[in-house]
Structures are given as structure tokens and as C-alpha cells.
């Protein structure tokens, strides 16, 4: 047991921190929130030059071949700086390609992902808004060598700029909801696809995507016909861990900013940080962060080591969802009215806590998984 970062991780972390501080100032974060795209191609290009999009892609596909754990270290830094744009969407969509893609699919996509040429996303949620298989109704019907997809996906992260989508479709009414689900790699420019950005709390470009008789070649099927749900589950699990790592990074900034402000702000002729009512709250914020942090690190380590970790991933997500929401709320509260202004940085974090808690499964969704895993009948 050694709970320190590896030397490589320290370097990755530090270089990411320096890069994001320079290249992704909060002015850019705000600008992208307000823009239609929510994406900066210049920033994306620089990130690709650092190799970030190919971080976990094996070297044989022109990636860097780092581990999942290394990726979470990088993502934590992104969370710290509320990096906007399609990184998380792309990397999450990379997981199922690496896991279930044919060699041909990998050769075609992975090197281009690593180069930053492609932007990917996954289309899972629909009207029901749940991350279990019962929520998948969008139909893909086989016609010769093609499939025709029709239906509507919601909350598709950065579909507005994506070049490809991993679309989770129902190909069969199986014996149970998790049977009969198939994944397709869909070129976003295929005729019949229409998207619209949904107005979310974090203004983070979650989209409604309508598929109207969209034709996809059978060779773009990812994994086996009607046996795709386990791939989705694996992706959701990795996504939940990655999202939790991002949240912990964000929580760190909320704590740091609040402590710094408490040392600076003077009321009653003293720094407000000298008042124990505030000190204890900041202690609690820090403790909440640290308890969440090692839960995330444990899940990331297990995932990276190939150990079964459905329970631990769900624990991390369920727990950190609330830590992020509560700590960012208390960060506003301790700053006082000033931090309720949209010009202040803390609300960027607070608003994203809402987005983070729904991504890859809500608190209660993951608690139910935990309930099953601890043996409740």
C-alpha cells in the first residue's frame, strides 16, 4: 500500500495544473458557457498536443498508453479548473471502443481520437432519464447490411460539436430490459440526425438528439448484436469514477478559495476566518473532501488494476455527488452575498455540481447499486 501519486502522476498533475491555469482562465470558461458551441478548438488542439485525448489509448493505436488511474489524476485537475468542452464526453466514449471495438474500428478511430481530430460522445439517456436498461427505447432495425435508427436521446454531452456518437439502441425486446441492446458508432453528420442544446444549470451543452431514420452500417456496430448492455455498464462505471475524480478536483478549489477569502475578508475588525463558527464549517468542508477523495482513489485504483469494483465506483459517485453539492454551497455561504454574483467564480463550481451529480447516475441510482452489493435482498 502506498497512497501517494507516482512520479509520472505528479508530473502529469503539475503540468496539467500549469497548462490549465494559463490556457483556460475563467474568462474563457464563461465565454464558452455563453457560446453556442461550449468548445474551443484552439484549446482542444493544445490539449491534443499534450497527448491528453490519447492518454489511455494504447501505443499501438498511437496513444500514450497510460492507465485509467493516471487519467483520473488528469481529470481531477480539469475539475479543479472547471475545464469546459468535450474532453469527458470523448474519453468516456473511448472506453467502449477500447473494450469492445474490432481491430478495424480501433485502427480507424483511436489514432484520430488521440490526435484530437475527433470529438466523441455517448447517447444513452432518453425520456425516462434513467441509466438503467429499462430507459432504452430508441429503436435500431436491421435492413440488410444496415441498421435504421429512430428515436430521441436526451442529455447527450456535447453532441453539438461531436463528430461521432456511441448510440445505445434497442434492437430486440429481450426477456429482460438489459437484453436486446446494441451499441452503434454513428457519424454525427449522417443525414437524419438533428440536435438542440438543452438549457441546463451548468450551461454545459447537454443536447437533445433526434434520430430520424438514420442509417448506420452493420460494421459500425460496437460489440455483439443485442448484447451491448454490459459494455454500457462498464462505461458507466468508469464514467462514474472519472466524474467523481473531476468533482473532487472542483471541491478542492471551493475549499481553497473559501479558506483564502476567510483569511482576507475583514469584518468586526478581524479576518472572518478567525471566527470558530466559520472555522468549523471549513473544517467540515475539508473533511468531506478528504473522505470523498480516498473513496475515489480506491475505486480508480481498483478499476485500473482490473479488480471488480461496481460497488466501490457507485459508493464513490453516490458519496461525492453530495460532497460536491454541499461543499460548493457552503463555499458560497461563507463568502457571503458576493459569491452569489454570476461574476464570481464559485457559482461556476456550484452550478456544475448539479450537472456532475446526474452524469453517469444520480446519488440514489448508485445507492441502489450499493444496496444490492452489500447483500440486501
Amino acid at each position, binding site marked *: 500500500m502506498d497512497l501517494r501519486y507516482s512520479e509520472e502522476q505528479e508530473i502529469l498533475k503539475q503540468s496539467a495544473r500549469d497548462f490549465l491555469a494559463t490556457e483556460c482562465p475563467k474568462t474563457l470558461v464563461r465565454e464558452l458557457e455563453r457560446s453556442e458551441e461550449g468548445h474551443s478548438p484552439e484549446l482542444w488542439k493544445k490539449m491534443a498536443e499534450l497527448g491528453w485525448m490519447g492518454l489511455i489509448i494504447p501505443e499501438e493505436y498511437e496513444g500514450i498508453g497510460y492507465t485509467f488511474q493516471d487519467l483520473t489524476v488528469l481529470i481531477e485537475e480539469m475539475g479543479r479548473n472547471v475545464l469546459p468542452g468535450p474532453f469527458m464526453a470523448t474519453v468516456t466514449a473511448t472506453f467502449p471502443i477500447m473494450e469492445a471495438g474490432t481491430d478495424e474500428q480501433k485502427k480507424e478511430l483511436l489514432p484520430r481520437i488521440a490526435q484530437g481530430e475527433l470529438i466523441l460522445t455517448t447517447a444513452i439517456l432518453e425520456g425516462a432519464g434513467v441509466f438503467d436498461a429499462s430507459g432504452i427505447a430508441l429503436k435500431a432495425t436491421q435492413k440488410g447490411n444496415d441498421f435504421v435508427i429512430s428515436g430521441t436521446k436526451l442529455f447527450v454531452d456535447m453532441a453539438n460539436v461531436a463528430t461521432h456518437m456511441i448510440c445505445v439502441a434497442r434492437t430486440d425486446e429481450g426477456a429482460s430490459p438489459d437484453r436486446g441492446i446494441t451499441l452503434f458508432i454513428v457519424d454525427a453528420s449522417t443525414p437524419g440526425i438533428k440536435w438542440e442544446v438543452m438549457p441546463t444549470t451548468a450551461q454545459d451543452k447537454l443536447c437533445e438528439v433526434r434520430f430520424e431514420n438514420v442509417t448506420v452500417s452493420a460494421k459500425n456496430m460496437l460489440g455483439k448484436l443485442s448484447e451491448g448492455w454490459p459494455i454500457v455498464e462498464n462505461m458507466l462505471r468508469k464514467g462514474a469514477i472519472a466524474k467523481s475524480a473531476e468533482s473532487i478536483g472542483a471541491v478542492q478549489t471551493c475549499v481553497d478559495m473559501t479558506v483564502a477569502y476567510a*483569511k482576507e475578508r475583514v469584518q468586526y475588525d478581524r479576518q472572518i476566518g*478567525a471566527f470558530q463558527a466559520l472555522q*468549523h464549517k471549513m473544517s467540515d468542508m*475539508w473533511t468531506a473532501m*478528504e473522505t470523498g477523495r480516498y473513496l475515489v482513489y480506491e475505486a480508480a485504483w481498483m478499476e485500473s488494476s482490473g479488480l471488480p469494483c461496481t460497488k466501490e465506483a457507485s*459508493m464513490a459517485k453516490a458519496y461525492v455527488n453530495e460532497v460536491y453539492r454541499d461543499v460548493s454551497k457552503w463555499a458560497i455561504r461563507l463568502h457571503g452575498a458576493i459569491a452569489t454574483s454570476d461574476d464570481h467564480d464559485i457559482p461556476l463550481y456550484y452550478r456544475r455540481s448539479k450537472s456532475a451529480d446526474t452524469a453517469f447516475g444520480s446519488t440514489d441510482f448508485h*445507492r441502489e447499486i450499493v444496496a444490492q452489493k452489500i*447483500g440486501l435482498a
Partner: protein
Amino acid sequence: MDFSLTDEQKRHSKEFYDTCKELGGKRPSSLVGFEAIYELDECWEYNLHCAREFGKKGWLALGWPSEYGGSGDMMDRVLFSEARGYYGTPGVDIFGVQMLAPTLLQAASEEIRKQFLPPIARGEAMWCELWSEPNAGSDLASLSATAVKKGDEYILNGQKTWNTGAHRADWGFGVFKTDPEARKHHNMTFLLLDMKTPGITIRPIPYLDGSAPYCEVYFDDARVPARNIVGQEHEGWAVVNLLAGFERSGINEIMSMMRGLEQLVAFCNETERHGRPLAKDPIIRNRLAQIACELEAARTLAYRVADLQNRNEMSLMDASAGKIFFSELGERFAYLACDILGPYGQLRSSRWAPLNGIWEKMFHEHFITTISMGTNEIQRNIIAWYGLGLPRMR
């Protein structure tokens, strides 16, 4: 970042678990909760039995230098602690083994180490702590019990209080004012004393549940050999701080709660209410799942503390955060368990009590962990002042 155990550690862990499980065969059913060992004679006897068994295996000296009979490292100590927590096995004196021994190894003279460490390692000498006084609780440095040096003895007068298991202990360690003229923090001496010394009177304090594991101790011209000192004369405060740094990682309480969760899950699966098992109640599922998340968070934080200790990089902040989180989690868990048990949640160990009344005991035993070893409010101050660097109001 690596949470894995080496093959050797896994082997040790199995040995710890096997032994604790085996010792469970002799466990009296009256032993419910952590503090009960100090209560009934049969529980105290069981505690001594376990201590001697552990002593024979050398497990009370894990992480000590080999010249004092030590073996293994801090990680072994953590694994041992996990196993004991899981099976609720007593036998490791928190005062002697966990707090005093590492303090002696760092701060005591060779003579003192040679005299006091071997009986601790053998599980023969049981200790108590003599710190708090009626007017010196959180502000321990304002203590007033005195030790006046006369020849080669200190003569002790005054009162100590909240001394867990003092009525059972062979030895006590504590701080006494030795220089009334000196400024605070430089006026007290850390002494080791035989609890059978004439002039010492021990009175159990009735706790809110009717038990009495805590005592008050009166000193009336009690004579203690002057050589029974740890650290420098008048500089006992430094020793107090050192000892406080040897807080338990908390892992055994956490593992005890982990086992508590397993038992409660089984109870919910087996027990029907409203025509279905309790386990099918979505509210109970949600609440138990949340506690399970918090327990896992607690366990990983305990590993973090242990990992730091293992490299001698103790962080005051992490230890305080752990103390706050573990103790308050214990409260939350006990309240939840008692909610689930309904009216049975108020039953002490008896033929009506589910799970031998453990949750009724936990309902109030957790108070103590939020207060002892520095209240959780003091711990929050420590995080704020020493961790976050927030200013201290004078």
C-alpha cells in the same frame, strides 16, 4: 497510488483474522460494545486472556524495534486492528499498547523503556490515562493536580477524572503540575505510577446508561518514584502532544461497524414487516447504502492515515478529520440501526433484544468517541488552525 497488500501482509492478515475468530469462542455474551470490558469481571478476564494470547504471538509489539521484542511494521498493526475490530476482540490495551508504548519508544529513557515495555508487550500490565480534571477538560494545560518533588519521590495531590478503566488498571500515566511558577505548557511533568500506590482513591462515575467504565481518581499524598518520568521535568506538555499524535487510526472501530452492517443486512433480509422483508423497503435500502458509502470512505481515510504513519509522515489534519468522521459516523449508524429495529432498538442485551442489544449500546457509546481524546470541536479547531492555517482568536 496503490491500495494493495503484499502476499506477506495478506498472510499476516489471515493469521490475525483466524486468531480473533478463534478467541471469539470464549467470548462472554455479556460483552456488548467496546467499553464493557471494564464493567463485568468475566469481560475483564476475557480481555486479559486475549491480551496474553496476543502477547505470546508478539502482536502487542507490532512495529516496535526488535530490541524491545517488536516485529512487523505499522501496516501489520493496521491489519491486526482490522481483524480485532471485525470480531470485536479486546486484548489490546488502548492506553498501554496503542498510546504509551510508542510514546516511550520516542521520549523515554532506556531505563524506563526496559522496565515498562516488556510487560506491555506480554499483555500483563494494563494502563489507564490520568489527564482530564474537573476544571481542565479541553483546556488540559490549565490543570491543577500537583506533583511536588521530595528527595527521590514526587508527592501527588489533587483529582483526575474521566479515567477509563482506572479501577481495573495496574498502571497509570498522567500529567501533574510540578512548577506552579512557570508559564502554562512548561509547568507540568509526565509521570508513570502504580495505581495501587497508597493515597490513590478510585471511584467509578455512573455513565448515562447506568454502566460505569469511567472513573475519577483522587490523590492524597501519593508517592511516586521520581525516576518514573517521561521526557524532561516540567516539559510534560510536549509528551502529551506526542502521545496524542499516536491516536488510533480508527480502523478497528470501522471494521467493527463493517461487521455491524453485515449483521444488520442479514437482519433486514430475515425480518418481515408489512408482509415483506425489511430489506425490500426502499427507504431502508437507501439509508443503509449511504452508511455503507460512508463506512468505505472512513476505511480509505484510515488507510490514508496508516500509510502516512507508516512513513512517519503523520498529518495532524488527517488524524483529526478521521477522528471526527469516524465518531460521528458511528452516531449516525447507531441512530439508523435503532430506527430500523423500531421499538426493539431500545432494548438492552436480553432475550427480546435483536443482535444481542448491540445497537442499544452503540446508541450511547458513540457519545464517548465524539468527546474523548479531544472533543470533535477541538479537532475542528486543529484542522482549521494547523491544517488550513486560519487565524486563532486570542
